[in-house]
């Protein structure tokens, strides 16, 4: 394939909360919970942030880094499970906010945590078939867990945007394939505020089966082994699952190092694997192979075999905060302020 990633940008809100602080409220050993999940802190969106603002900030960074004329964007898709409107696209606001309207197609994607990787596949198809010059795929979320639920210790906010094209490709796609089944491990019914999940059922039959099968099939298809990859990125609902699945598949900690961001910002859902990929690209050198396997509950996995090009050495990674800055810095909140920011306090009225 000649198509690939032309530019990228990530955005994570500035506020953070630790599992210890959450645990204090619910009478739980939060520090132990965080250790078990391998989540040291998670990001919290400010009251004026949502999937639309996060997506816009990530894409603005990508467009400036790649010196891309927004009017050349032919398709824009935003994958999320926390679109601010049930009816009215996130993608139209984002497209308008970056100056890409009106000559483009735009839509919102939803497939739990893998809506962003599904958007990348769609853009690759449109670019490869020469229907558009640039396609934009964004994975972004401001998800939350019910107060006191295990999800509350990891559900966070953030997103990343990828511009897909055929010119000045910094990371070309060698192969992508998917693995999809009907597996009810995690869901949120229409009108419900918080998601529900199947507890331990989210592990073996869901995350681990789909990620390993999808990754293994892709490597079989291209005839590669784990040693062929400089970096590997998995969907990361917590910091523990990706480490375990990586070991099962034969990857080393060094290969997983840059792609694992959840321990420092929490699970950004549709943004999780994509922010991991953005961090890998922040560090990557030319001619490095990258394996990314996303996962979305419900359930499915999308696997990608990427290879960086000479172009990445010329790419302007200097503009915008690197992902590492989001991993290292933040403004820590007490639970009460976090609860206020996330609308967990009932204010009375209608």
């Amino acid at each position, binding site marked *: 394939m000649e198509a690939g990633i032309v530019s990228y940008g990530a955005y994570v809100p*500035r*506020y953070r909360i630790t599992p210890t602080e959450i645990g204090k409220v619910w009478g739980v050993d939060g520090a132990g919970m965080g250790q078990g999940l391998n989540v040291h802190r998670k990001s919290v969106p*400010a*009251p*004026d*942030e*949502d999937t*639309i*603002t996060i997506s*816009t*900030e990530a894409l*603005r960074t990508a467009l*400036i880094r790649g010196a891309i004329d*927004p*009017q050349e964007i032919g398709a824009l898709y935003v994958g999320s499970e926390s679109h*601010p*409107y049930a009816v009215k696209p996130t993608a139209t*606001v984002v497209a*308008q*906010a970056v*100056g890409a*309207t*009106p000559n483009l197609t735009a839509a919102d994607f939803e497939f739990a945590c893998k809506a962003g990787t599904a958007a990348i596949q769609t853009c690759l198809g449109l670019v490869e078939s020469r229907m558009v010059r640039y396609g934009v795929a964004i994975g972004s979320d401001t998800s939350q867990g019910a107060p006191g639920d295990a999800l509350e210790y990891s559900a966070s906010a953030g997103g990343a945007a990828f511009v897909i094209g055929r010119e000045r490709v910094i990371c070309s796609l060698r192969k992508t394939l998917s693995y999809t089944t009907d597996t009810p491990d995690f869901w949120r019914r229409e009108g419900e505020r918080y998601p529900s999940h199947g507890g331990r059922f989210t592990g073996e039959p869901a995350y681990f089966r789909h990620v390993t099968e999808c990754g293994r099939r892709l490597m079989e298809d291209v005839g590669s082994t784990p040693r062929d990859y400089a970096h590997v990125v998995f969907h990361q609902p917590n910091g523990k699952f990706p480490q375990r699945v990586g070991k099962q598949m034969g990857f080393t900690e060094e290969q997983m190092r840059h792609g694992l961001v959840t321990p420092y910002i929490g699970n950004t859902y549709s943004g999780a694997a994509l922010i991991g990929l953005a961090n890998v690209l922040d560090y990557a050198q030319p001619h490095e192979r990258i394996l990314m396997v996303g996962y979305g509950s419900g359930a499915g996995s999308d696997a990608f075999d990427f290879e960086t090009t000479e172009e990445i050495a010329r790419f*302007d990674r*200097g*503009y*915008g*905060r*690197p992902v590492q*800055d989001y991993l290292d810095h933040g*403004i820590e909140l007490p639970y009460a302020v976090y609860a*206020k*920011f996330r609308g967990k306090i009932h204010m009375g009225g*209608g």
Partner: protein
Amino acid sequence: MSIARFWRETPRRYNLGGSKCSICSTVYFPPRSVCPTCTHHRRSIGKMQPLQLCGDGEVFSFSIVQDAAEGFEMQVPYVLALVKTVEGPMLTGQIVDVDPAEVKIGMPVHAMFRKLREEGRAGVIHYGYKFAPSTAEDRRPHRGGSHEPSPMAEPPGRSRASA
């Protein structure tokens, strides 16, 4: 604010769409159709070019709001500032992602895309610019001392200037 009124202001609220006099190079936000700076105002008619502000600037003055306007109760205390943009126009906007005690006059800031307000739980959500403290990475690479503002894409629909 009515949906139609906010929608008309989208180019400037989303993209900081202003205008620049092609005679004297003065930049305006909100955009103007006549340049009040030029000696012969009429000469500037038809010579005002659309221009998108880059979003970089510094705090000219500010106030910490303790008694919130409706819809901003969750953000108290918050900072409302006059921001002097690098292109010249002074903008009023909220400073976010900062402890209000750390805001200083002269602090470099850059524009962020944020929710401005919601028309209740079921109503439309309005978005636009606010400002956040800048680090070196936040400054636009093509915008240094010799900043030349980039022209703005033609806004959709009419843009009505207001004070």
